[in-house]
């Protein structure tokens, strides 16, 4: 059968659910013409970096700077030892993280 998918923001998504038989392989390959493919990179991150003056690279183990009584101080207090400056992620990575979480929560037995 033919399956319709949409490719958006670096991810492929089924446009209609497809349920496989238990013994069917779960990975399939699709052909996308090379001339339609952009180099693999995070366009959104790149766009953002080009539109804003780039800050000096920060040590990602640092706790976020916070003035006393500020909202950032409140976040740092809530997080305790988990408060730190973290590296950025792309929209696609976030999407994949949510998909993985939902799969683990609702589809795995």
């Amino acid at each position: 059968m033919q399956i319709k998918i949409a490719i958006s923001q670096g991810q492929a998504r089924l446009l209609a659910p497809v349920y496989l038989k238990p013994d069917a392989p779960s990975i399939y390959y699709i052909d996308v013409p090379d001339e339609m493919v952009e180099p693999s990179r995070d366009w959104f991150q790149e766009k953002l970096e080009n539109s804003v003056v780039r800050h000096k690279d920060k040590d990602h183990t640092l706790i976020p700077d916070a003035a006393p009584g500020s909202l950032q101080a409140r976040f740092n207090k809530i997080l305790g030892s988990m408060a730190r400056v973290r590296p950025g992620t792309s929209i696609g990575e976030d999407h994949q993280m949510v998909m993985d979480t939902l799969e683990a929560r609702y589809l795995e037995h």
Partner: protein
Amino acid sequence: MSTESIVNSNIQLVFDTNILVDALTARGEYYHYAVDLLEMVTKGDAEGWYAPHTLTTVYYLLERTLTKDALTRKDAIRGARDLLKTLVEILKPLPQVGNEISGLDAGDGDDLEDLLIIKLATSYLPNPLFVTRGSQLESSYGFE
């Protein structure tokens, strides 16, 4: 619907999912801009809104992000839960009945979550400004 009673500021910020996670977990180089906008809301310099259907996504992203640095999963869950509680104290929910998706004109590959945020915000707020980084929202109502 009249918005006179619900809008108190000329600046009505509508926060996208990823921006909220950036702000709450100090993620990426520009998280402090997102925190600054939330701070504006806490000081009453702007109104801050979120779409209720995005909250579970925010929670999942918070929990997963914190799990990488937490001593135990319980710590990550507590952190995510407390951040979310703080967030909903700061921001106001856009009214959502639940059937709004039926009126959406979505094309192949459109992000329904984003389309729904746009619909809720533009239906309820007179002049919403979407705080986002790269999504359907940016292409439709960019605010960078």
